[in-house]
């Protein structure tokens, strides 16, 4: 065993690094690294740049215009782009609906939707959760009834917690097409144009004051049956496929590495007792523990990536999600702690890109508290950490 990258791996890393160095627009890099607010256009610009390089879809097979990379290459790509300050690629189209369309969509659907995801022309959002159906997703109620001529579905109901739905052109939804029998067996997977009459998007303001989630209401929204994926009432299995598809999921290793680097910088800069905070043993130990935890997760990830790719990863992904989210949460908490009471000042204007006012504290201080608050979501979404533990205890441990 050794950890030395082989030549191809090293060459690949160098290539990605050089590309990001050269191609990531500086204003976007600054916005990301300084924790400012990213706009829709920032995501789109970066997606176009990646697409031009042929790297628009790191997770897709070549046949669909993807890179055809191995899981390890994807991991390296993610780590390099993230630590350099690139915005994450919006996952809903690229990583969530696209694999489903590839696996279960018709050739027409594939031709119609996939290229526009690659270029960023279509922004997708995910319509799974409902007010009464979060962890228990299969209980979802939003109805899709067939029109008398059998050509259209009529959608009525509500989706919620819809991430960045305010930017979206399309939403993929799980809807109820059958109310009898097993709940899971009455769900269909449909693609809905957000411009359809009858859709209302209402912002949900989060605890940090930001607008990144929404309620989406459906009032007699017409969806052509041809925009259903696969068979009626089989939507649950397509959604499950999606969950199994993500190997590296929410381990957030790139983000945590970036956060740790930033924390180290801040801890050198902040003063405690007339010395840099990093010289405070108590605080330094906390950073050290986070670093150890992150390293353990990183190696765990490498071990998983070394497993033959044809074998689907199962519940191990749950472990990555639990530890990955916990570690990033701790790092954001430590970053806030490092800033002392200056972190308590709320300066929403200081989160806008290009703000050049005088902060309370230092230039890095204004976003830190909101970042910590916002990141509480990590252990709630994508299958809450409690649900992930249920999966591990049932599927791995057999309890």
């Amino acid at each position, binding site marked *: 065993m050794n950890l030395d990258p082989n030549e191809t791996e090293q060459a690949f890393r160098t290539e990605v690094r050089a590309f990001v160095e050269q191609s990531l627009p500086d204003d976007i890099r600054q916005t990301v690294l300084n924790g400012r607010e990213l706009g829709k256009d920032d995501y789109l610009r970066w997606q176009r740049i990646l697409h031009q390089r042929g790297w628009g879809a790191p997770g897709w097979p070549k046949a669909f215009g993807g890179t055809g990379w191995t899981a390890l290459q994807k991991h390296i790509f993610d780590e390099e782009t993230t630590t350099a300050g690139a915005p994450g690629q919006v996952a809903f189209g690229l990583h969530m609906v696209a694999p489903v369309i590839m696996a279960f969509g018709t050739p027409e659907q594939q031709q119609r939707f996939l290229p526009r995801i690659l270029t960023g022309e279509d922004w997708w959002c995910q319509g799974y959760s409902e007010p009464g159906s979060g962890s228990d997703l299969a*209980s979802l109620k939003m109805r899709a009834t067939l029109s008398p001529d059998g050509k259209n579905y009529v959608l009525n109901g509500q989706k919620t917690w819809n991430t960045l739905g305010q930017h979206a052109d399309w939403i993929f939804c799980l809807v109820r097409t059958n109310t009898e029998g097993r709940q899971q067996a009455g769900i269909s997977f449909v693609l809905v144009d957000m411009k359809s009459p009858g859709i209302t998007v209402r912002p949900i303001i989060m605890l940090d004051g930001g607008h990144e989630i929404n309620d989406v209401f459906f009032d007699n929204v017409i969806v052509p049956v041809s925009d259903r994926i696969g068979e009626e009432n089989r939507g649950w299995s397509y959604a499950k496929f999606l969950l199994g598809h993500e190997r590296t999921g929410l381990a957030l290793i790139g983000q945590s590495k970036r956060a740790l680097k930033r924390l180290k910088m801040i801890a050198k800069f902040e003063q405690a*007792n007339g010395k840099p905070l990093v010289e405070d043993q108590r605080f330094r130990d906390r950073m050290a523990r986070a670093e150890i935890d992150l390293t353990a997760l990183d190696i765990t990830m490498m071990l998983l990536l070394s497993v033959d790719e044809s074998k689907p990863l199962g519940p191990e992904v749950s472990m990555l999600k639990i530890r990955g989210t916990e570690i990033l949460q701790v790092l954001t908490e430590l970053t806030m702690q490092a800033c002392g009471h200056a972190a308590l000042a709320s300066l929403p204007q200081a989160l806008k890109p290009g703000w050049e006012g005088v902060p309370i504290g230092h230039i890095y201080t204004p976003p830190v508290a909101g970042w910590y608050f916002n990141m509480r979501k990590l252990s*709630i979404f994508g299958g809450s*950490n409690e649900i992930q533990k249920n999966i591990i205890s049932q599927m791995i441990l057999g309890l």
Partner: protein
Amino acid sequence: MNLNLSDEQLALKETLRRFVAKDYSFKTRHDIIHSEEGISAAHWAQFAELGLLALPFAEAHGGLGGNAVDTMLVMEAIGSGLMVEPYLATVVLAGGLVQDAGTEAQKNALLPNIADGSLRMAFAHYEPGGRYEMSQVSLRAERLADGYALDGVKTFVLHGAQAAKLVVSAQDGAGLSMFIVDSEADGVSVRGYVTQDNLRAAEITFNAVKVGAAALLGAAGDAEPAILRALDAANAALCAEAVGAMDALNQATLEYLKTRKQFGVAIGSFQALQHRMVDMFTAATQARSMAILASIRVASGTTEERRWACAAAKVLVSESARLVGQQAVQLHGGMGVTDELSVSHYFKRLTCICASFGDADYHLDYVSSRLLAA
């Protein structure tokens, strides 16, 4: 030993409970925090009417002669109602310092006005870059023929922009001293800001601010013991506030566990969540014990006892507040991270309490250092 509240204290507790329930709804608070000033004059007047603003001051100065245990009851109610009025800044900190270190004339001039609600004050002590260190004061007080000139910057002045007068710590030739300064005085510029938990604070710059000799609060160069007492009282008060907030948050979370259904059952039927909830209640109970200890020591302990108890309480209360705050959000699922529910507001207040007037690490350092001394 008697750990029971007196009849008067029980009555006060009940009055406060009713006040929060009737007059300080989450909606009322919402309107207050989004107002220009960020605090409510009407509610402040009610505080005065209820005698809360007079509570800890001596009867001779318009007060009610209460002590830190009474303050604890008020702060607990402030925590449970997430009240944003400047009780800590005005009554506990600045008022406490005047009562503690002031001359008869200063007490007569200020305390009755605090007590009747007409004067709000704040304590300007921490400085940029000084973190929580109480002795890191570099604001200069230059001796003049007829008084002093103050130069320097104070930060995290709680409710500094809502105060007419400030108690300002400064270095004069003799050492650490305190001055009473009008917020409107020439050379004082106040940059008020909203805090992450929707309170108000300010960064205040003093530029050749002239004050008379009578502005000196306490003996020149001898302010440290009084400041330490005030900061301990503030931390004891914050611990009580945190306890009030944790209780409210635990109640809300318990209610949610009983009513939110997933998989056809109340989520409170999942043992993982039951145990989590038990941990949260245990943490809040232990926090309450330490908040009580701190208040008793502020009321009547020796310096050693007081300092130890306040530091130890802040450590344990901060750790409890972290657990209760984070887990209340977690157990509410998506609802927990919305601005709409009070849950996230309690979580943010608790987070900010932990980061105010010394975080857990800072206070642990003191408790830990006493082991070496023993």
